[in-house]
């Protein structure tokens, strides 16, 4: 399941709803991304997430389908916020649940890595010295690329 929203989300309620009644689930892994008050040593006062509404949900659904193709996932959820957020606020929630923990851990890490480089979101940081658009990190490209394989072209 995919949701793109301005509002906050409740990670515990989402997890409970996703796993309810699915008794083949042995492990559920959740990732919550939060706005930090520092980036590369400089203070951050707020972060605004811009996105491409007509494209965002479709791209997130493609990424989720790719994870379901690669791992035996019983249930999954991506919730991504947009708009202006302050330090400590939640940005993104990714949950994957599977019979076995390894599939849940790997697929959740995969989704987060691919989100960062393949979903049409851009971050504007506010700092005491002004605003600046966050540069894509080379480390995120590398994290995303470690999941590449000959089978992954469909989600490109």
């Amino acid at each position, binding site marked *: 399941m995919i949701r793109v929203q301005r509002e906050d989300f409740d990670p515990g309620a989402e997890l409970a709803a996703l796993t309810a009644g699915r008794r083949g689930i042995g492990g559920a892994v959740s990732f919550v991304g939060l706005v930090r008050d520092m980036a590369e040593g400089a203070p951050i006062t707020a972060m605004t*997430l*811009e996105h491409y509404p007509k494209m965002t949900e479709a791209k997130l659904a493609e990424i989720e389908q790719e994870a379901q193709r690669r791992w035996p996932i019983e249930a999954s959820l991506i919730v991504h916020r947009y708009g202006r957020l302050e330090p400590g606020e939640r*940005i993104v929630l990714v949950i994957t649940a599977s019979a076995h923990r390894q599939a849940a851990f790997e697929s959740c890490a995969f989704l987060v890595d691919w*989100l960062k480089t393949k979903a*049409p*979101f851009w971050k*504007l940081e506010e700092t005491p010295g002004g605003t600046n*658009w966050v*540069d894509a990190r080379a480390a995120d490209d590398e994290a995303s690329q470690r999941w590449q394989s000959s089978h992954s072209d469909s989600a490109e």
Partner: protein
Amino acid sequence: MRVLYFAWLRTRTGCAEEDVTPPQGVLTVASLVEWLKQRSAGHAKAFAELRVVRAAVNHEYVDLDHPVRPGDEIAFFPPMTGG
């Protein structure tokens, strides 16, 4: 064609969306970019460093040699930083 700009491409062009009618010779994303650069100093600045510009045509990521046609929705943006 409808052209959309995101993140610093939007702030540099001063424009989120615009309808454009490029001349017939504009057949690819790359030639559209060259034509858009002439619209304003802001457009020229937005496309000054193509290495950090990504494009989508009709909601699919594409390379700069991808064809563009009347009626297409073309978006320009920097590398994504979601998550």
